[in-house]
């Protein structure tokens, strides 16, 4: 196989081989180029990095630990399961890494207003938090369906001073929130920065979000080397848009490490009711980039299903599409049920309540640990599960 230098992507046109790019209407080209320039000029400067790292250290609470889940590991066999504890970040998930970075960048660009889309509400909360921290006006678009599913996060955002706008178009979920945020941005480009929460969207977003999230993988590498004297054999992370996954994977792409992304299998891939475009989709164009998507025979974007609102998205970051095609990363899926089981096992055995998103990665890790011998498996525990308590309790028909 030809050796690929993964650090050279995206190319100048924002492409990861045939994926990515800038599929947007003309009005957005200018702000996207402006953002790209500001990013290369400002965010790559040592001054900016110093500021950002200080925020990560004192405000976010980084570095997050790597925890050896000994009890579960023993239960499953001879593999060792390690958890990168992104759930211990301020606001409870990896989303803050990116939101803070972009808010800081927006501030440097002289923007006074931030918009964001959110599905589960984790990115919305992170964006609202960053805006409170840097005194920026914040508007969060959220699908009306998701607002119903995630009422606690909606209230958190409001407490943080954000204006949460329900989106009633289309399927009333994350993809429609993204549409609406793009419409807002087109209208208010002069004073507004759009903080996309995942590695999706048009260039330069997949690159910017990846870079801000890479802190996960960079830390993990250092920590594994320092504590266990070697890199893990296997990395596992859940993939919706794929920001926590790319954050963990990217710094390891040139290492001898097996990498696995886990998509939301919903009711099962064969039912069609899932959110697993890399497993059961085709390349197409959605939200400004070319990537694997879920669509019908007419090219209309399909409605997806996942128990986890954060994975309930018909597209995926373009870099993941490329990593799939180049076979560097393997993409699998687990069902709602498997994820809920993993949620329960981690909670009971380790005393850690994972986000339902992260529970997808755990479910696959547990399966793998039973099959393999003596491997070390690092799972990105991308967020904590407090936000999912309602979903779980209603599933078990328990009233809180």
């Amino acid at each position, binding site marked *: 196989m030809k050796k690929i230098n993964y650090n050279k992507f995206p190319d100048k046109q924002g492409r990861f081989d045939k994926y990515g*790019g800038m599929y947007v209407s003309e009005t957005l080209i200018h702000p996207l180029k402006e953002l790209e320039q500001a990013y290369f000029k400002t965010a790559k400067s040592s001054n900016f990095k110093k500021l950002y790292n200080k925020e990560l250290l004192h405000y976010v609470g980084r570095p997050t630990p790597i925890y050896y889940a000994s009890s579960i590991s023993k239960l499953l066999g001879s593999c060792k399961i390690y958890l990168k504890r992104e759930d211990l970040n301020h606001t409870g998930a990896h989303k803050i890494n990116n939101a803070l970075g972009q808010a800081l960048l927006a501030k440097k660009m002289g923007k006074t207003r931030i918009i964001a889309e959110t599905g589960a509400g984790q990115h919305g909360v992170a964006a609202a938090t960053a805006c409170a921290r840097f005194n920026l006006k914040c508007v969060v678009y959220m699908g009306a369906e998701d607002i119903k599913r995630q009422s606690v996060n909606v209230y958190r955002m409001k407490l943080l001073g954000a204006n949460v706008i329900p989106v009633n178009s289309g399927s009333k979920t994350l993809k429609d929130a993204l549409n609406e945020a793009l*419409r807002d941005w087109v209208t208010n480009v002069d004073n507004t920065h759009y903080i996309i929460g995942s590695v999706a969207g048009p260039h330069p977003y997949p690159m910017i979000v990846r870079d801000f999230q890479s802190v996960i993988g960079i830390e993990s590498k250092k920590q594994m080397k320092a504590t266990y004297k070697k890199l893990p054999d296997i990395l596992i992370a859940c993939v919706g848009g794929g920001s926590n996954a790319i954050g963990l994977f990217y710094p390891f792409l040139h290492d001898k490490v097996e990498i696995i992304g886990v998509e939301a299998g919903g009711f099962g891939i064969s039912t069609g009711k899932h959110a697993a475009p890399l497993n059961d989709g085709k390349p197409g164009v959605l939200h400004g980039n070319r990537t694997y998507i879920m669509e019908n025979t007419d090219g209309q974007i399909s409605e997806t299903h996942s128990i986890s609102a954060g994975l309930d998205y018909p597209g995926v970051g373009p870099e993941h599409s490329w990593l799939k095609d180049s076979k560097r990363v393997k993409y699998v899926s687990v069902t709602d049920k498997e994820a809920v089981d993993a949620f329960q096992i981690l909670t009971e055995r380790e005393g850690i309540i994972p986000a339902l998103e992260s529970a997808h990665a755990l479910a696959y890790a547990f399966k793998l640990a039973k099959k393999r011998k003596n491997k070390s498996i690092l799972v990105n525990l991308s967020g904590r599960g407090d936000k999912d308590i309602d979903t779980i309790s209603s599933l078990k028909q328990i009233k809180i």
Partner: protein
Amino acid sequence: MTRITDTFLANKKMGTTTFITYTVCGDPNMKSSLNILDALVESGVDIIELGVPFSDPIADGPVIQRAVERTLKNKVSLYKTLNLVRLFRKKNKDTPIVLMGYMNPIEKMGYRRFSTMANQAGIDGVLVVDLPPEESEKLTNSLKKNNIDQIFLASPTTDDLRLKKIVRQSSGYVYYVSLKGITGSKISNIKMVKNMVGKIKKFSNLDIPVAVGFGIKNAESAKRISTFSDGIIIGSSIVELIEKHHNTSTIMIKKIKSFTNRIRRVLNKK
């Protein structure tokens, strides 16, 4: 020469502005949609932009979003859109038709297949909203082979360098988006629009026509824009009439006709 170029030339000769409308294919249903196209032509519309429904129309405002949702409920597709044009062409060989939509349905059909089918259906031009010139090479080649004009958007945020590129790559006309925003908003700065239209004309060796859209809502704004633009495009206002009167198709057609007639009259009187 294409039908689109001919239309602009003929109007220029007569001293009037080319009148372009946008409606969504299959709104409120396929049969009425065809009747609407006929009615538009009868009341003086020169070029028809026909919207291809797409589930995620990121450049469109609420009026057109709702229209698209109505049509998607009836499973209107790119195939069905091509079919409607075929039916329209049985009676009308003169009025240019431009398909306006988003990338993914075309992507799904395949560029070559789409281009040949569009040509066979009698389509004159294609405008893909989320396809800037940088990403368009393959589709452009395929459309060219089938003698279909490709219209690109220019916007208030387009700088001179890009504007030159857009003008060079466009055929038929250049669609100038008159405002920073989505369809159905209101133009606030006519002077800037005039300035940009002037620039586009200056940058074009072949004197490509410029049509202004997004934000023209009524006879008054149509008239003001027509004093410096080769064409004006009205979409949301007509789609709004369709939405309001879709239950009674005779009234709907009547309302559309009287609205477009009024626009035609002010354009002729300029």
